[in-house]
């Protein structure tokens, strides 16, 4: 196996969150709890249980499943934000998540200044931001309002700019976690094209969406999750058909929202 290509390899991942039922959120509460002798309950909940996957360059892998089934936790482990409780995780290459609309943006700064800010947070060298600046603005169709403060942007504008910055990062592993819900259809079509293009360039794309038509259009493979575990993995159409049958959603593609 070549060692110079991106790779995401997860084996037997378990992730527990400690759920604090009434963790003191303030010093005052912590102090009172100590004085009154309260002990707050800590309970472990398994967000991800025995999750195994591997993604190779050029693949768009979809994660589907109901809310709270552990998709975001898996992606956060890949991004290096959360540490696994058990399991082996190997990631080769630079991981870049597409942030939610406006995350990492400073409200009072202009779109242009925010491109630099979120580019730096995502780990893009300044020189690269400089050279990609025109592309980022053009791709987001932001030329008209890039000089106004971000607080005046609509959520669609924020998302377009945020996506465009991440799309021009040239990361090895791209994480798209349900951020596209505020985009209009034309933009979403361009995003789908862009994701396919990223995969063709030899990158790995991990894609989460609740819109099955979108999953069908973009993903090569789909992992169906439930309660932190994997229900089924396989080719997109097969798994999506089964998933939709299981959830009772209508099967014909025209009937679901795109």
């Amino acid at each position: 196996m070549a060692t110079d290509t991106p790779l995401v390899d997860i084996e037997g991942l378990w992730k527990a969150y400690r759920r604090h039922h009434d963790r003191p959120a303030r010093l005052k509460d912590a102090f009172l709890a100590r004085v009154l002798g309260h002990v707050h309950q800590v309970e472990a909940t398994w967000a991800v249980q025995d999750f195994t996957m591997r993604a190779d360059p050029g693949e768009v892998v979809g994660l589907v499943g109901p809310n709270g089934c552990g998709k975001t936790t898996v992606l956060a482990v890949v991004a290096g934000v959360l540490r696994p409780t058990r399991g082996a995780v190997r990631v080769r290459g630079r991981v870049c998540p597409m942030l939610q609309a406006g995350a990492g943006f400073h409200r009072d700064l202009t779109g242009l200044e925010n491109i630099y800010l979120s580019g730096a947070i995502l780990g893009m060298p300044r020189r690269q931001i400089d050279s990609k600046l025109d592309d980022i603005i053009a791709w987001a169709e932001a030329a008209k309002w890039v000089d106004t403060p971000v607080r005046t942007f609509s959520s669609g504008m924020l998302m377009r700019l945020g996506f465009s910055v991440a799309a021009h990062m040239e990361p090895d592993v791209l994480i798209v976690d349900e951020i596209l819900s505020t985009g209009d259809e034309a933009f979403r079509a361009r995003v789908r094209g862009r994701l396919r293009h990223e995969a063709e360039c030899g990158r790995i794309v991990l894609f989460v969406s609740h819109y099955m038509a979108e999953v069908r259009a973009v993903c090569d493979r789909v992992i169906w999750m439930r309660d932190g575990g994997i229900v089924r993995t396989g080719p997109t159409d097969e798994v999506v058909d089964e998933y939709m049958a299981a959830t009772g959603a209508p099967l014909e593609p025209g009937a679901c929202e795109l």
Partner: protein
Amino acid sequence: MAAEATVEREELVPRGRWRQWYELLAIMTVAQLKARYRRSFLGFLWSLIMPLFQIVVIGFVFQGLLQHRIPNYTMVFLTALVPWIYFNDAMLASCPVFLRFRDVVKKIYFPRWALPMSIVSSSFVHFLLSVVILFAVFAAVRVRFTPAFWAFIPMTLMLTVMLAGLSLIFSTLHTYYQDVEYVLTAFTRMLFFVTPVMYPTAQIPEHYRFWFLFNPLAAICEGYRSVLPGYELPSTVHLLSAAGFSVVMLLIGILVYRRMNPQLPEVL
């Protein structure tokens, strides 16, 4: 199931770490400064009006109402007030910084210490601008510089090292306990009165002066004030203990950050 967790990460294109850190910090600092000065019509000038107001009020109380007159009082107050504001600003602004960027902190790994550090560095730039104005005022009222003028540099270094540590400590603590900011606000307000900012230590009765040795900010404020004629550097012991305090705070800050930082996305 595997009994333990292993995470292996490899870079395909290695990047200079220092350069990345420097760029991140620089871009964040500039962003903080721009956001700070842009929102208001007068920008930077506006941030000078509050201290000026303070000087007028306190100056009136001290010079007009109280018996004891201090020559050149405005200058005496101002030289200590400028570093005090640096301290106060950086401390209080660094508290909520992780919470403000929680969307990013929860989504992507990046050197998160850059967030509190960018608060300190942008406060530092603000401080330098204030010092320039302070010198302009010195020149305008024809205050002679004493040879202790160089004391500005070590004092600023001490204060900045201290703030770097404290901002790491309090920004981390604030994510766990969200009233840290209130406690800190109350504490710094109290600290303002027991630190020789609006009065020089020389005005304190002798038998109280011993206690000022325990306040590292007292040494720093008096250190800044020693640029004025008639004021001297604090004793070597006092200065060294303040420097020691700064370094210890930085070490504790690094320790707290390293210990608590991995859990931060889960707590936020």
